[in-house]
């Protein structure tokens, strides 16, 4: 397949991300404005970071005038989950794909882009990934811009409704494989139950959501790998695109 075909497929697959990002970053834009950031600063922040939780917490630290080391440490902790996602993605990219692509692809590793990328069969073409990133970043940066310049442009009800779009997309990614595999279904249910426990139980709920994701991912995926190791043909798949 040609590069532009992959790119176009990525753009199409990224439309739910676009809508969800538009809503979330719209809220971010309003907050950034309230924290005293200019339109340019808010847009630059969204374009250079492309992450939700990290940016929201970053705003708080900027407003508080926190030391830079504290900012770096906070971002590290909140965004450490991307490290696990990149490890997983590293196995989706064909070994023959030119190395420099990884430097560009790294920019776009977000929860949502990761989710859609791994749900695609076979090897991951960098151009498919770029298509996803392009449309997602457009939503993220565009939403930020709209949020700063006109907080009242999107009705609150629409923002609220679209805020669930990204979760709906995640559900559409994990449920079909869970239907096909009892192991995956069990893992999805256990993950949700433990996540609920971590969110609600005393002491455990003090753990930040970023760390909750990391702890549960390592423990549950680790246990699943011990008890249900996959056969060799399950994770690799066909190679799709070389360059």
């Amino acid at each position: 397949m040609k590069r532009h075909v992959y790119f176009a497929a990525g753009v199409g697959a990224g439309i739910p991300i676009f809508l969800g990002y538009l809503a979330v970053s719209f809220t971010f834009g309003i907050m950034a404005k309230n924290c005293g950031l200019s339109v340019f600063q808010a847009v630059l922040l969204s374009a250079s970071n492309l992450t939700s939780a990290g940016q929201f917490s970053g705003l708080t630290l900027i407003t508080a005038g926190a030391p830079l080391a504290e900012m770096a440490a906070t971002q590290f902790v909140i965004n450490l989950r991307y490290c696990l996602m990149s490890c997983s993605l590293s196995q989706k990219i064909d070994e023959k794909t030119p190395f420099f692509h990884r430097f560009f692809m790294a920019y776009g590793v977000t929860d949502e882009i990761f989710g859609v990328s791994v749900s695609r069969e076979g090897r991951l073409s960098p151009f498919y990934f770029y298509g996803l990133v392009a449309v997602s970043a457009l939503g993220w940066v565009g939403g930020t811009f709209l949020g700063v310049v006109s907080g009242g442009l999107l009705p609150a009800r629409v923002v609220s409704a679209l805020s669930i779009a990204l979760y709906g997309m995640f559900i559409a990614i994990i449920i079909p494989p869970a239907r096909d595999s009892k192991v995956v279904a069990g893992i999805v249910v256990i993950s949700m139950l433990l996540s609920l426990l971590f969110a609600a139980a005393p002491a455990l709920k003090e753990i930040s959501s970023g760390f909750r994701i990391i702890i549960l991912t390592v423990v549950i995926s680790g246990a699943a790998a011990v008890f249900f190791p996959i056969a060799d043909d399950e994770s690799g798949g066909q190679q799709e695109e070389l360059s």
Partner: protein
Amino acid sequence: MRPSVYTYIAVMAIVTYLIRLLPLTLIRREIKNKFIRSFLYYVPFVTLSVMVFPAILTASSGKCASAAGFVTALILAYCRKSLITVALCASAVVFLVELLPII
């Protein structure tokens, strides 16, 4: 002295980018180890499940609306509807439930 907003943005962007970049560039070969391969195979399912629940219940401004959106998404995803269909229908249900005067 207080750092400028641009310094903060630069620190945030660099830290976040490096977290994403290092595993992608350091793990160049296909991993042969069966445990690690299995581990990485399961990572997306666990990560996405943990991110969805229970956070989805507080995603929109109302709990009932969010729960209705959650159930809608589960049913449509089970019927193997596309990502965009599931995302938009869940949003539409949230929108409609929030319009109800009682809730």
